[in-house]
């Protein structure tokens, strides 16, 4: 077998790409370890994302925990302060509410409160659902909560390659990172660099170039936006900017794209009110006032808890038709 070159890619699902990033991090750095609920084999995680890792790297470094989110994050914080690089799994991001004190009051602030004498190189992996009829406590997208806390890095991948590269960057980062995995994308395949692959935090990616309007989005909605852009081809030329990283975010990429198109629509699954889209709209208005051809619009979840019934959930979640309508409105 020939050695793997950096450019060589393999076709992997996002779940497999995350598994590969974890596997390589465990192999490369003895300070890395995983902890979380059900992550050990034979279960290998509720979505099998950590399958095989405890068998390969041992149960000391792929540690099963009780259902104790405060203890999971607290243990990860303490271990990180003592020089390790824990990757903690909080199964579904709704459960971040259970450990919010550890995450918000401790992980995010310990570097600052200590005047830089301590730090917390911690990665928290969590998934979000939506569209799976899992009801109001298992379907939220809460990234805006996290972005409101100085000290946290917040990352949402949309492709298997980005998932591998961003997760690797998070694990190597010296501050707490929350890595949000859109569960709807776990099974979607894509080319992934086989060897070391790092996507730096804070760099957006133009997933499609266009000249009439910029769709600024991340995670699952990147694919919805690309589908809308393809459907509008020949009519409206749509650029799709995948933020990938929400904190830090790529202000230069947003300004470059919207300066060119003069129109922007922000799309996310999270509830629209006080969502990340609101911050982006404010940012673009402040920076590009006078050059914008239309107000920045936002497409997001309706202002309700996520409902159970299929018909209600579809109505709650942003749909392709909502994106199309917003694009038509700003280009009218």
């Amino acid at each position, binding site marked *: 077998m020939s050695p793997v070159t950096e450019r060589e890619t393999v076709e992997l699902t996002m779940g497999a790409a995350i598994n590969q990033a974890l596997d390589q991090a465990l192999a490369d750095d003895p300070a890395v370890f995983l902890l979380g609920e059900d992550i050990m084999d034979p279960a290998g995680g509720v979505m099998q994302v950590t399958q095989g890792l405890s068998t390969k790297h041992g149960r000391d470094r792929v540690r099963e925990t009780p259902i104790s989110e405060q203890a999971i994050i607290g243990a990860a914080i303490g271990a990180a*302060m003592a020089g390790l690089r824990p990757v903690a799994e909080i199964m579904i991001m709704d459960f971040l509410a259970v450990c919010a004190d550890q995450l918000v*009051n401790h992980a995010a602030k310990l570097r600052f409160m200590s005047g830089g004498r301590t730090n917390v190189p911690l990665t928290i992996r969590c998934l979000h659902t939506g569209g799976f009829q899992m009801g109001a406590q298992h379907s939220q997208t809460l990234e805006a909560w996290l972005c409101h806390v100085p000290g946290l890095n917040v990352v949402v991948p949309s492709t298997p390659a980005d998932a591998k590269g961003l997760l690797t960057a998070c694990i190597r980062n010296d501050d707490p990172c929350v890595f949000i995995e859109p569960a709807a994308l776990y099974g979607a395949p894509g080319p992934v660099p086989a060897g070391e692959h790092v996507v730096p935090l804070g760099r957006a990616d133009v997933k499609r170039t266009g000249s009439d309007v910029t769709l600024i989005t991340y995670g699952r909605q990147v694919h919805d936006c690309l589908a809308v852009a393809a459907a509008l081809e020949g009519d409206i030329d749509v650029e799709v900017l995948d933020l990938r990283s929400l904190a830090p975010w790529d202000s230069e990429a947003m300004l470059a794209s919207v300066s060119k198109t003069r129109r922007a629509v922000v799309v996310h699954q999270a509830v629209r009110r006080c969502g990340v889209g609101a911050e982006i709209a404010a940012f673009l208005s402040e920076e590009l006032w006078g050059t914008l051809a239309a107000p920045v619009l936002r497409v997001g979840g309706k202002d309700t808890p996520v409902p159970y019934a299929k018909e209600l959930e579809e109505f709650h979640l942003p749909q392709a038709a909502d994106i199309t309508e917003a694009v038509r409105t700003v280009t009218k």
Partner: protein
Amino acid sequence: MSVTRDTLLEMYRTVSRIHACDERLRGLLNQGKIFIFYYSPRGQEIIPAAVSACLRPDDYVVTTYRGLHDEIAKGAPLRELMAEMLGRSGGTCRGKGGPMHISDPRSGLMVTTGVVGGGLPIATGLGLASKLKADGRVTVVNFGDGAANIGAFHEALNLAAVWALPVVFVCQNNRYGEFTPIHETQRVEQLSSRAAGYGIPGVTVDGNDPVAMYDAARTAVDRARAGGGPTLVEAMTYRFMGHFYGDQMPYMDQAEYQAALAADPLPRFRAQLLEAGHASEEDLATIEKEAGAEADDAIEFAFASPPPDPSTLFEDVYVEVRR
């Protein structure tokens, strides 16, 4: 007696340093020279003096907002401690932490949290790191009786038990959670009995008795270091100055309070040392005088230390400065 004369005198030095600093901070508050929320440890000094006598310099300590005694006992430098109390640039945390958030990793003081119970899960993580690295360190986490009723206590003790972590949980039971007496908030006689629920040893000790406290700490620390897992040590004590300094304490039982003051552990410790012939009046006076001079020097340093430059605000949020 298990504890040596030298150790007892070392403990007396520690309590004297704690007392000197505490007394000066209260004096400055009384005189209106400083305006800070201050959670005096007066009455609880023996506990960390005894615990720290059982620790190595590289062992970890986590404490809570009423933590000045724990911080001094672990060896945090007094000058930087006092400067941090005053929010000065020369403080342990460059003025960003304050009395409730003192960290000094050089002395093993990793976290001071302002959230009741918030330090316990983090202590398990420090213990986990020691276990994974096999560095032989022990982590001591201090908290009050109020913290025993928050969920983090339960999760942390259970996890420490499941993973047999080298952590000593020291509950400094001063009988009040903020402004509420303990009998209003729990139904067990002794909080140490909760250890049974996690399958770990739990012990209640008179935290104001230097020898008993030392023995309990020694047993728990040695057990943790030897790989025997965590212990819950409930150290009975009393809070002399209320929740924060200036608290009028209308909620306190006056008879109980007067009895506690009459049994002040500091003069009692002093008398014990004299009675046992461990030290002369002159020896103890020298220790107290040195502690006082150190505290004066630290306060002087703190007042001389400039306030932090506003430009430092953006530092230490992340590893790199972001704006």
